[in-house]
């Protein structure tokens, strides 16, 4: 009787253990499924990264997502890459929509003055430093001057496109009496036939328009910028730029793609994506050193060209219209002196004139430059301090004022610039 009872207890214990095991497994499974969403990495803090769009409608978000996909897609020979190219995708020069790295630096050649490029028949205006296997490398033609250009930051460019000409002209007008000799002016250039004038465009009497993109501010709008980037940087043809880059040394006819290598649909999505990228966000804006640096920035005259506050005008994308932004640029070209003169230019800018580089996102440069910084148009400056000291020409006075600052003020200014 007792033995039977022990046996029953043993069986009951065994069954209870089995039940407990099963219940434990079920509870663990439910807990896992219900909590897994809380245990993946957080979204990137917008202040620390450049990923993200402005406020968009659902339909716009779909288009933005498509553009994002195409922007970071890698091109191959089978999908139109080359035959001469610099990079295989937009994202290679603009990792996370940031500025470029020296390994994808561009070389442009063939225009020594404002009378246009003299070497278009020999592959101008851009040298594609890479080519598909088996082809001859491109070379800068004898006699052509050239410059090397590091890719600028992509984030926020849609807002720059929405800045009205009237505001750019106002910045230029204010320069006329600048006591330090700042004389920035717009780069007027002939716009391509496919370009629709921007809202509020104010053309010059000779039919040229104020251009604003590129290191020389020679590109009119983001559609032209994207068409050129596809074509010059990746060797991808579009309806806007239908001819492939070629190498005169190969002595073959330029390769003309029978159909555009980027579809109209994809191209428009990429342009929309670029337009709708959010602006960089300043970090530590209320930090005492940063605010001190901001004051130094004003005191030594950086603000004259690197305009902190700019207001956009009308845009067909509501989120871009009539917004106050902090790009730290006036979108004008300025004479930066002999040391910055590569004897190459675009549009009507002189060879020593460069567009004021937007400083937003400057502090995020090390993220995409291997923990270092490569500043100025060709990456020649390896620190913010070096970059400031390399400013010549119209910025020479500000540079000398910087050199005269106390180390504390210099460091405060650098901290401020790193916060951008």
């Amino acid at each position, binding site marked *: 009787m007792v033995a039977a009872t022990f046996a029953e207890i043993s069986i009951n214990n065994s069954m209870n253990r089995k039940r407990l095991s099963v219940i434990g497994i079920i509870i663990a499974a439910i807990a896992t499924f219900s909590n897994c969403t809380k245990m*993946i*990495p957080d979204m*990137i803090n917008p202040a620390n990264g450049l*990923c993200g769009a402005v406020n968009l409608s659902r339909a716009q978000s779909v288009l933005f997502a498509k553009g994002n996909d195409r922007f*970071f897609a*890698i091109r191959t020979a089978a999908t139109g890459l080359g035959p001469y190219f610099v990079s295989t995708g937009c994202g290679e020069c603009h990792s996370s929509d940031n500025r470029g790295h020296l*390994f994808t630096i561009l070389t442009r050649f063939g225009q020594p003055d404002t009378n246009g490029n003299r070497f278009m028949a020999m592959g101008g205006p851009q040298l594609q430093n890479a080519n598909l296997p088996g082809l001859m490398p491109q070379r800068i033609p004898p006699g052509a001057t050239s410059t090397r250009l590091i890719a600028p930051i992509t984030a926020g460019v849609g807002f720059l496109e929405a800045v009205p000409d009237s505001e750019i002209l106002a910045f230029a007008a204010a320069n006329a009496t600048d006591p330090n000799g700042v004389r920035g002016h717009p780069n007027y250039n002939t716009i391509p036939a496919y370009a629709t004038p921007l809202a509020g465009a104010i053309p010059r009497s000779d039919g040229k328009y104020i251009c604003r993109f590129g290191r020389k501010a020679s590109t009119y709008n983001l559609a032209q910028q994207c068409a050129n980037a596809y074509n010059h940087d990746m060797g991808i043809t579009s309806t806007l730029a239908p001819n492939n880059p070629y190498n005169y040394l190969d002595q073959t006819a330029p390769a003309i793609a029978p159909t555009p290598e980027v579809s109209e649909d994809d191209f428009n999505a990429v342009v929309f994506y670029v337009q709708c990228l959010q602006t960089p966000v300043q970090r530590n804006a209320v930090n005492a050193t940063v605010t001190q640096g901001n004051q130094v920035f004003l005191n030594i005259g950086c603000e004259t060209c690197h305009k902190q506050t700019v207001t956009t005008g009308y845009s067909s994308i509501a989120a871009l219209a009539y917004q106050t932004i902090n790009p730290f640029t006036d979108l004008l070209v300025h004479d930066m002196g002999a040391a910055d003169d590569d004897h190459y230019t675009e549009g009507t800018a002189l060879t020593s004139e460069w567009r004021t580089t937007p400083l937003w996102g400057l502090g*995020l440069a090390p993220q995409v430059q*291997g923990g270092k910084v490569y500043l100025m148009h060709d990456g020649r400056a390896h620190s913010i301090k070096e970059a400031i000291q390399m400013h010549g020409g119209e910025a020479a006075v500000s540079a000398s004022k910087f050199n005269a600052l106390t180390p504390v003020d210099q460091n405060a200014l650098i901290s401020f610039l790193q916060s951008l």
Partner: protein
Amino acid sequence: MSMYKVLPCCLALSVFGTAQAQLDSSLLRRRSADTAKSTLTMDAAYNRPFLKLGKMPVSIGGYMESNWQYVGTSGITAGNQFQFRRFSLFVASSISSRVKFLAEIEYENDPTGDPADAHEGGQFEIEYAAVDVELHPLLNIRGGMIVNPIGAFNQNHDGPKWEFTDRPIAMTQMLPETWSNTGFGLYGKQFTGDWMFGYEFYVTGGLNDSIIDNSMGKTWLPAANANPSRFSASASGAPMYSGKISLRNSKIGELGLSYASDIYNTWQVEGTQIDDKRTARILDVDFNTVLPKLHTSIVTEWAEVLVQIPPNYTQQYGNKQFGGFIDIVQPIFKGHFLGWEHATLNLAVRGEYVDWNVGNFTSTGTRMYNDLWSVMPAISFRPTPQTVLRFNYRHQFQRDITGNAVGAALGLTEGYSLGLSTYF
């Protein structure tokens, strides 16, 4: 009779019919994997559970892998994903006592992150179909569609053998995953006491230009898998040489050294040279052992890929890659569990690292990054040795070539997966 009446009848018939009309079970003799006999990784293709059909000289077997996963990178996730990754069917035939044939037909849908195959979905393919002719234990001829002996994982990749739902990144994405090709070769084994030695050497078709021209934007040997003509035409016209030597001591473990070399590019057209010949080489070392007393299983494999890159080509495509993994599996329970006689519960962890672009930028002299590391703890339950239910957590960190780790597809990846895999 309406469909509503036919359907339940069919279901009932199928249930009861199965119970009552099942084939005589003695006709289906299961031949389990021979775990008692010492084997090398090179034996993996035949060291699987097979079902033999009576006295027919044919055995069949296979495995499947299915899983759920929830993974996110930088706060972005595709949510709950239910994936049927593989269904593989093998058929083995003993043509004579010293001539045997094995074929493996596989359905695979295991996205590797390559945008080019992201939308293609699952694919059926013949992964292996080769005949082995034994002349001597040290001299066997193998011919047909073979799996090149590039590392241990390439040879021994069946899902049910592993405690992780994901395959090692370096062994499947840096090396060409389950790389098989048409060719011929020799292999053999020799036993002496506790020692076992094996070798393999094959000449096969090879890679192609896509390894340095692909939608991943990096040197990517698996891109050659997408070449539909690789089973009938070699891109370079030169054979790919691959070989492996293995040394096993029953008390220490097994060490394998693999080497493969291939002229991968199409360098001539219609007899005219249009390009230089360029070589891809792979050097791989693997080791596995089981610690005595603790029964801890350790499996590790590391490889280096060296690819000649054309001059004036983007440095996105690296000329050197390095990566590998280590798995540590610790059984914590063996025995009777929920009615299973030989159940096993394991704790495991996998560490892995891949550097897709070893070296420095020519423009700056600074390091090219483009690397990732991952740690993946796991718990697995095996009701039988042939079936595994596994739960994994992945913690992975990835940088692009510039060192950028802040981006939608960069930085920290974390997530869970629950997978079921079994031989049948």
